[in-house]
Structure formats: structure tokens, C-alpha cells
């Protein structure tokens, strides 16, 4: 009995040290997982909640997260929330698909063809320098306050990041690899598909992710100026009725939807660019 006590006494400190080390390692491993990215947002929410309850943040300045959740629940029950999200997401997607595919097509065309570049690039560069939202009055005159106006604005907004980065990616194709492909008898099409386009993908993804940000930004503004549905509309009408919680909810929704779109783009990027050393390193870690 006394023997085992001595043993315990000797072993325990060692063991607790080992446990501590293992705990440290677990924490470290957790910090490299995807979940860790949410530590800071969640902590911010907690601080915000506590500060609201203590009265540090007056409720007419910013609603407490719990109030926002209440509002979300209320609007979910009457169907408004889902409806507005669906409407906004639909507009964002439509604008993105239209603007993005045009941008991609023109980026490719002008990237491979000097004539195409001569004919269109100057125009694009001029239009690009017009602030997107300066077009709003004109767009309202053209389309009224229909959905097509908002889709047009989104399409215009996402066009340039994708166009410029696609164009750039194609133009900066590795001349050495192109020469190699030629010397091995690749046809123009093969050269494009197997050498030039894959090389341009990292740049195209930069444009894609950037344009997703612009997509939401443009949509928010378009929806707050003139709309009768959508998240932006929800926020604006809530303002009229002094429903601060709904306003905050709308803003948080944009943040979440933006993050969602970015995550999808990242996932695409990670699967398409497996060959890229930057993505290989990340794959090995996890």
C-alpha cells in the first residue's frame, strides 16, 4: 500500500506534465483546423452580448445579439427572412453568372487575340473607371426599379475583376512552357487547354474571389436604393419602422452570405489547383 503511494507520488507529477503537454498539443492542433477560424467571430459576439446586457451599448445604437436572433426567429416564422434571402441570392447569382461569363469570355478572347484587345480593351478600361454606383441613376432610368436593374448592376460590378484577372493570367502565360508545347507539336487549341489556361487559373481565381465581394456590395446598395424585396429592402423598411434588430440582422446576413460565397470559391480553388505548391502544403497539414 505504502509502495503504491510512493509510486503514485512519483508518477503523478510526471503524468500531469505529460497531460499538460498533450493538452497543449491538442489545442495547437485545433488552432490549425477550420473551426479555429470561428474563434474570433464567436468571441466578438459574446463580448457584444455581454456589453449590451450591461448597458455598455445602448439598445438604440446596436441591438444585442439575442435580440437579433429573436428577430431572425420572428422573420423565419412568417417566412419573410427565407423569402428575402432567396430573392437576394437569386439576384446575386444571376448578375454573377451573366457578368462573370461575359468577363471570362472577353478575358480569354483578348488574352489570346491582339485584335480583340485592340478593339475592346480601351472601352473596358474606360467603363471600368466609372464608379459602379455612379451608374445607378442611369440604370434606374433604363430598367426602372425592376430586378433587371439590380442584376445589371451586379453583372457590371463583377465583370471587371474577372475580366482583368483572366486577361492578365492568359497574357502572363509562361513563354517557356508555351515554347515547349509548340516544340512537342501541340495544336493551338491543345496549347490553350493544356498550357495557357491552367497557368492562368490562379489569377482567374483571384478575380473570382474579388468579384464575389463586389457582387454583394453592389447588390446591397442596389437593394437599399430601389427594391421591394431582398435583404437590402428588408433593412431599409426596418429602418423606417425603427426595427434596429432587423437592420443588424440584415447586415449580419450579408456578412454570412459573403463568407459562404468565398468559402465555395476557395473550395473550388483548392480542388482545381491541387498541383500548386501553396495548396499542397495546406493539404499536408490537415
Amino acid at each position, binding site marked *: 500500500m505504502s509502495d503504491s503511494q510512493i509510486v503514485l507520488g512519483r508518477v503523478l507529477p510526471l503524468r500531469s506534465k505529460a497531460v499538460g503537454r498533450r493538452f497543449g498539443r491538442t489545442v495547437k492542433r485545433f488552432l490549425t483546423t477550420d473551426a479555429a477560424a470561428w474563434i474570433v467571430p464567436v468571441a466578438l459576439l459574446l463580448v457584444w452580448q455581454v456589453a449590451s446586457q450591461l448597458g455598455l451599448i445602448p439598445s438604440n445604437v446596436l441591438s444585442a445579439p439575442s435580440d437579433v436572433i429573436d428577430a431572425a426567429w420572428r422573420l423565419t416564422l412568417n417566412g419573410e427572412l427565407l423569402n428575402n434571402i432567396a430573392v437576394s441570392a437569386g439576384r446575386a447569382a444571376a448578375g454573377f453568372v451573366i457578368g462573370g461569363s461575359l468577363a471570362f469570355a472577353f478575358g480569354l478572347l483578348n488574352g489570346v487575340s491582339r485584335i480583340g484587345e485592340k478593339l475592346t480593351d480601351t472601352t473596358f478600361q474606360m467603363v471600368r473607371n466609372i464608379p459602379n454606383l455612379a451608374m445607378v441613376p442611369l440604370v434606374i432610368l433604363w430598367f426602372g426599379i425592376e430586378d433587371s436593374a439590380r442584376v445589371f448592376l451586379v453583372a457590371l460590378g463583377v465583370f471587371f475583376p474577372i475580366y482583368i484577372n483572366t486577361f492578365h493570367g492568359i497574357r502572363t502565360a509562361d513563354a517557356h*512552357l508555351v515554347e515547349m508545347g509548340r516544340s*512537342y507539336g501541340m495544336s493551338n487549341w491543345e496549347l490553350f487547354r493544356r498550357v495557357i489556361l491552367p497557368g492562368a487559373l490562379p489569377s482567374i481565381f483571384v478575380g473570382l474571389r474579388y468579384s464575389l465581394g463586389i457582387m454583394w456590395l453592389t447588390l446591397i446598395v442596389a437593394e437599399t436604393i430601389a427594391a421591394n424585396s431582398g435583404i437590402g429592402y428588408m433593412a431599409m423598411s426596418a429602418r423606417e419602422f425603427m426595427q434596429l434588430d432587423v437592420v443588424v440582422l440584415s447586415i449580419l446576413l450579408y456578412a454570412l452570405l459573403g463568407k459562404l460565397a468565398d468559402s465555395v470559391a476557395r473550395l473550388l480553388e483548392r480542388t482545381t489547383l491541387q498541383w500548386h*505548391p501553396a495548396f499542397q502544403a495546406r493539404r499536408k497539414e490537415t
Partner: protein
Amino acid sequence: MVDDILVRALLEEGLHPLDDREPATREPAASEPDLPPGGVAITIAGLTKSFGSNTVLHGIDLEVPAGQFLTVIGKSGCGKSTLLRILAGLDQATSGEVLFDGVPSGRSGHVARLMFQEPRLLPWARVIGNVEVGLGARRTLPGAEDRALAKLAAVGLESRATDWPSVLSGGQKQRVALARALASSPNFLALDEPLGALDALTRIEMQGLVEQVWREQGFTAVLVTHDVTEAIVLGDRVVLIEDGIIKLELDIDLPRPRRRGAPEVAALEEKVLRHLFSEGGYVERRAVA
């Protein structure tokens, strides 16, 4: 007159003047299913290349018999790469011609490949995909992957077939580039310092590999190198380019495989180096002129 003296000087040195060797023909192994392509005889006549006012090659004349391993040395900037690129059809000569088996190289139908100084692998294709690039149009035929794998095996990398190029070492990348060149069954393979960036040990290993695949496949090889020893160990013949012309040709009749430390190799190396760095040849020629 000038040439006579030069030729005599070369003979005294034990060096051969131009064009004195018969083609070393080799029989194609007809029984093999994947027939080695066999080499092509190359004739270079009055080849001149200028970039604007800068004339880099001043009328090169050279015969390379089918299946010969020719090594080219010369100081940096003397036009070695330019010569290889023209031979491989990547650049056009300003004047003069290149004949493959007597036919202008562009129309001869022979496969000429250039192995670059850098591996130039497609980073987004796996190792096996990169080797398949060499198959060209045959890539879509059945059995293409087996062919590619066989070439990969020839350079000892069949176990890395599904790796991305970015995880390979420099020497391994060059071996993949070699496998890709082999996959295209070249009749002529030009090698532009492909081993220049490798460490000494890997380099020796790669030299052995290049020599081995050359013997197996029988293509005509022209290798550019900065390394005189490499030129002597690998070449049936060494040519030295200087001032845009061929200043020296030297047949290497040593049995293969050659040992780098062997006294015969060292003696030849000494000879070439002496020629490279002595101004003697110039003085003699100027005195005559």
C-alpha cells in the same frame, strides 16, 4: 593557305580536321515492338544567324552522321543555344541550311526534339501526364499510358508517375523531361545544357543515363555543355564554337563507358583547355594573313 596551316596545326596536335569520319550507322532492332526510331544524319551548310546587326553564327558547316553523339562546347554567348534551337526547328536560320538525311529539316518528317536547360514541366500535370506530352498525337491512342510509363521506367522514375512535378528534386525533374523527350521517339535529340543546374554527383548519374538511353534508342544526339569533361566523356566527337564558327573538332575514340578520371580523358581535356585559353592559334593565323 590559312586552312592548310590550321589543318596541319590540328593534325600535329592529334586533332582531326573537319569531315573526316564515316557515319557510324546502327541497325534498327526490327524485332522489337516499340521500334527504336534510329538516328538521322544531319548536314549543316553555311548556317548563319543574325539578330539585327549582331551576327552570332558565321556560316557553320558540319556533318553529324546518323546516331552520333556530338558535344558542343564554347564560351558563354558564343551561340551554342542559338545553333541548337535552329537544329531543333525552334528558330529560323538567317541563311544556310540544315538537312536531315539530305532533306531540308522542316520537310524531312524526322522528329527533332530539344531538351531545354530547365525541365519545363507542366506544373498542373502529374509526372505521367508530362511524359505523355511527348507522345503528341499518339497520346489519345490505346496504350499511350503504357508507353509513357515505359519511358518513365527508362529513367528510373516509374514509382513517381502520379506525383506533381513540384515535389520532385531538380535531377528528377530533368529525368522526367528526358522521359518526355524519349516518349516522342526522336530521331534527333538536342540537349542544351540540361545538366547544368545539377550538383556534381547527380550530374554524373544523369550523364550515365543520357548515354544509356542514347545507346538504346539510337537517335542522333547533340549536347551543349560548359563542362569539358562532360563533353569528352559523352561525345563521339567534340566541337568548339568560337566567334561564330567551328574552331576545333576532336574525335573521341575511347571505349564506352568512359571513366571521368581516366588518363586518356584527362589528356584530351588538357588539349581542349589549352586550345580554349591559348591565343597561339590566333597569332599564327594573323601572321599568315
